[in-house]
């Protein structure tokens, strides 16, 4: 039986479990509560009419408020010719709203589609980029409403608390909704909206200032358009000023409160302000109109108005004048200049000047407008400005002098006045004298150097370069680099003038010489008639023995057009030269077959040479066509020996032809002349002192010019010449017999016959004659 395998069960009592019914009860409660909530708090179906369904996705596009999804687009349908959209086709979106958002679904609520937007002012709706577009809502307040029309654009209204003010501008500029509002380059708000004023003459721009910055806006605050950028160049660097990159492109509004307005009451909502075009304009300067009679280079907002180097204003606008004959520049003057803007005040354009003292920055700043502020009887706001600085500025302290000159060279305004190369003053300006004949240069000498100027002081121009060139090199001389660029004036006094002359007074007039030499040298002016002045120019020197003793100051054709009349100046101590008998000639380079002379004139230019005479004072001279050959008398005076050779013909001999002894050059032919009876030619031969003992009573001279050609069957061709030079230029050779036959030494002026050729035995003579002086080898 089965019972034998079975074991008795063990009894253990336990309670029943009616508690299990709590489970379905709980579940029922949950389910009922959920169902209740589902039915009572379910979605609200609302329709929103969009002008376009672009960016809406069925079942996806949410409605967000405060960043929270409060609904979702369930469906759309097209609405043809929607009345609300002015007859255009629209898209009606059916949106299920969360019941908690029911209070938003009232009259006045506005809906719009938010799309990601990248603009220079910032990225808005970036979240829409990843999560898709969404519909934003701005709550209204009114009756319950279930049908809405969406806005085409997001409303400009900025949510949040803050100050709302209106600025009025003639133009909108590059401002836009969302353009930032800056206070000290800190963004404190934004442009909320803009619209035309009621009379359509201005643009009204609504600004929103965040609450925490609202206290910065006073009734006296100034707003200006901070669009764009300003670049300030300086030697120390370039500063680029702009409120921000966004403001550069999208525009922006900046404001600040002038010191004087700090105590004005705080602005309240709705206050109206003027929007200035720029900071400078907002600066409340006194607008002054300057009329220029020509175009000037000034830059609005950057060109400054300076008084004694201090900025007192800024150019705010530039335009052509009404009748188009000049420029009308509006500058904003510092209010402190108010009383000084009178009929005596003058404005002028000051171009940048290069001055070591003011530094390069002055040059880089560009033009500036300078003003000479003067009190006057009547206040003025319109001035006729000068396009160039006035020639003199009596305001500057120091000794004011007027220099007159024919020309000023490269002298410029602002150039320095030097005394012993120390700048002691400046050139204030220059102008033509009334008759147009001369230039008047106004200089001012610093007060502490004023004593250096007395009424015998000479001023001269040191502008530019003075170059002197020679074979030794080219020398360029300038007093200083500054004088090179801007020119300069130097002055000095003759010796002793310091004690004897009276001091100069302001307003004195002096002559401005063109050079130091002209100023300090007491010269004599002479006139030289030249047959040809080619290669000469004004300033070409006159030299005596290589020393400059004067210069040509003027060259012009003579009356009969046959000669050139040169006016020259002989420096002092050179009066000795202005005498009868003085000979002038033009020294020009000579490149000849037998010699090269005056090569330096190739570079330095031709010059006049003179040979002083000893007669009466004379101021008119006639220049020689070529350098004077030394006369016989002169030659006689020279140390050495001069003998005269009598020849039937001159042959190819010329002054300078060599004289040989044993083929060694010992002298030269200095000249020739016809004999008294014209039956012969006298050839003057000069023997150098060293070799004068070679010429004896019985010395024979022969013409060594040409070639001696012997031709024989047995000996062949025999060509003989004293030298290659003698072959071309001619020459004279001589020989002296041996022993007692040579005779005694001769005096200058002795006559010898000139044989046409040498006899062979002459060539064999070899007398032993002691030479003068050293025994250095002959050339």
């Amino acid at each position, binding site marked *: 039986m089965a019972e034998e395998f079975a074991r*008795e*069960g063990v009894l253990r009592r336990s309670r029943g*479990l009616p508690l299990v*019914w709590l489970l*379905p009860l709980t*579940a029922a409660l*949950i389910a009922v509560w*959920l169902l209740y909530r589902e039915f009572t708090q379910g979605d609200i179906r609302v329709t929103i009419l969009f002008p376009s369904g672009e960016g809406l996705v069925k079942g996806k596009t949410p409605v967000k408020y405060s960043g929270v999804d409060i609904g979702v687009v369930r469906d759309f349908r097209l609405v043809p010719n929607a009345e609300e959209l002015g007859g255009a086709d629209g898209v009606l979106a059916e949106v299920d709203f969360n019941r908690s958002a029911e209070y938003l679904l009232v009259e006045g609520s506005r809906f719009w589609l938010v799309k990601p937007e990248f603009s220079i002012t910032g990225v808005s709706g970036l979240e829409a980029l*990843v*999560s898709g577009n969404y519909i934003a809502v701005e709550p209204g307040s009114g009756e319950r409403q279930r049908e809405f029309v969406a806005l085409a654009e997001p409303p400009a209204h900025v949510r949040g608390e803050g100050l709302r003010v209106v600025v009025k501008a003639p133009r909108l500029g590059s401002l836009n909704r969302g353009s930032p509002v800056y206070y000290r380059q800190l963004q404190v708000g934004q442009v909320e909206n803009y619209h035309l004023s009621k009379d359509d003459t201005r643009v009204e721009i609504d600004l929103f200032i965040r609450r925490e910055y609202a206290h910065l806006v006073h009734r006296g605050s100034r707003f200006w358009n901070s669009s764009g950028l300003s670049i300030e160049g300086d030697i120390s660097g370039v500063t680029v000023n702009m409120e921000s990159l966004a403001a550069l492109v999208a525009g922006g509004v900046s404001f600040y409160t002038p010191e004087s307005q700090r105590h004005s009451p705080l602005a309240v909502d709705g206050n109206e302000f003027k929007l200035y075009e720029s900071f400078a304009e907002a600066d409340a300067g006194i607008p002054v109109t300057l009329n220029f009679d020509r175009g000037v280079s000034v830059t609005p907002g950057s060109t400054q108005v300076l008084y004694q180097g201090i900025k007192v204003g800024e150019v705010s606008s530039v335009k052509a004048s009404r009748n188009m004959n000049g420029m009308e520049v509006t500058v904003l003057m510092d209010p402190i200049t108010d009383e000084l803007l009178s009929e005596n005040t003058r404005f002028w354009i000051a171009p940048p000047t290069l001055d070591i003292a003011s530094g390069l920055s002055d040059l880089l700043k560009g033009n500036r407008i300078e003003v000479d502020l003067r009190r006057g009887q009547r206040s003025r706001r319109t001035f006729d400005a000068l396009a160039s600085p006035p020639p003199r500025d009596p305001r500057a302290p120091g000794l004011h002098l007027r220099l007159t000159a024919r020309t000023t060279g490269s002298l410029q305004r602002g150039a320095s006045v030097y005394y012993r190369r120390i700048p002691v003053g400046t050139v204030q300006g220059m102008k033509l004298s009334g008759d147009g004949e001369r230039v008047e240069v106004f200089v001012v000498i610093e007060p502490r150097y004023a004593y250096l100027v007395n009424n015998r002081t000479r001023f001269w121009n040191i502008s530019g370069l003075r170059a002197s060139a020679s074979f030794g090199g080219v020398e360029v001389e300038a007093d200083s680099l500054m004088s090179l660029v801007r020119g300069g004036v130097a002055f000095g006094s003759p010796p002793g003038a310091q004690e004897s002359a009276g001091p100069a007074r302001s307003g004195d007039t002096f002559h401005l010489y063109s050079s130091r030499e002209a100023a300090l040298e007491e010269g004599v002016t002479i006139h030289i008639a030249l047959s040809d002045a080619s290669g000469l120019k004004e300033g070409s020197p006159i030299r005596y023995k290589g020393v400059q003793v004067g210069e040509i100051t003027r060259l012009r054709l003579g009356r009969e057009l046959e000669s050139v009349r040169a006016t020259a100046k002989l420096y002092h101590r050179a009066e000795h030269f202005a005498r009868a008998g003085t000979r002038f000639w033009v020294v020009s380079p000579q490149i000849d077959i037998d010699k090269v002379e005056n090569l330096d004139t190739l570079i330095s230019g031709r010059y006049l040479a003179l040979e002083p005479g000893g007669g009466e004072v004379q101021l008119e001279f006639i220049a020689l066509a070529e350098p004077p050959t030394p006369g016989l008398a002169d030659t006689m005076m020279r140390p050495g020996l001069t003998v005269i050779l009598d020849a039937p013909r001159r042959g190819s001999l010329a002054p300078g032809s060599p004289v040989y002894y044993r083929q060694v050059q010992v002298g030269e032919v200095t000249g020739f002349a016809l004999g008294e009876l014209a039956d012969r030619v006298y050839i003057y031969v000069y023997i150098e002192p060293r070799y004068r003992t070679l010429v004896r009573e019985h010395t024979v001279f022969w013409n060594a010019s040409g070639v001696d050609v012997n031709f024989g069957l047995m000996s062949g061709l025999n060509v003989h010449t004293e030298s290659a030079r003698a072959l071309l230029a001619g020459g004279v050779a001589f020989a002296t017999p041996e022993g007692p036959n040579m005779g005694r030494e001769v005096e200058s002026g002795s006559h010898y016959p000139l044989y046409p050729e040498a006899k062979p035995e002459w060539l064999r003579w070899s007398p032993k004659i002691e030479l003068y002086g050293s025994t250095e080898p002959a050339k």
Partner: protein
Amino acid sequence: MTGPPKARESGLTSCLCCHQLVRMPEGEESCRCPRCGGRVHTRQVGSLTLTWAFVITGAFLLVPANILPVMTVIYLGAGEPSTIISGVMQLYDSGLWGIALIVFVASIAVPVMKLVGLVLLLVQIQFRLPLIPLQAMQVYRVVSAIGRWSLLDLFMISILVALVDMGAIAEVAAGPGSTAFATVVVVTMLAARFFDPRLIWDAYDARREREDAVEGAVRNG
């Protein structure tokens, strides 16, 4: 008396833990196994009551499980909580009808079928309706076998929640609906567990005896 003798009639019961044949003390329905100490029932105590309770609980919990979102997939900051139905719809809309079918079967069909099957069995036994015991047994076997497969969804959700956590890029968050759904699955499994299939045969036997008695009375006159 027809058919083979029944253990119950001999006061014998098998321990369901260690399969020890236990003699039930006189007049008792439940005792402890003398070998392993496990509970030994002639029939599960309060089987119908417990099963009813769990089935009703599960039925009610189907409401939150389907209304509340099961999970929220947030991709690049955007995401909509999805319920089971909407998830299936999304999958179907995306063309993944195979997966949609699996999810639908596992998450909706199976729990509902379980509840329906259990309710059928309970009603048949409770109200002594005529039943075919082999069919009923088949229903019971299916119900108890497929119950656990409904947890597939929950596994998927829990794995997704754990794996897909990439901050702002993508995130999966489980919703309260998944808790409700898990509860439904557990509750239906418990209901199946507490249902004692021997009751089917008891009901069948009782009916047969009643019919026999009626037949006998008719035959005996």
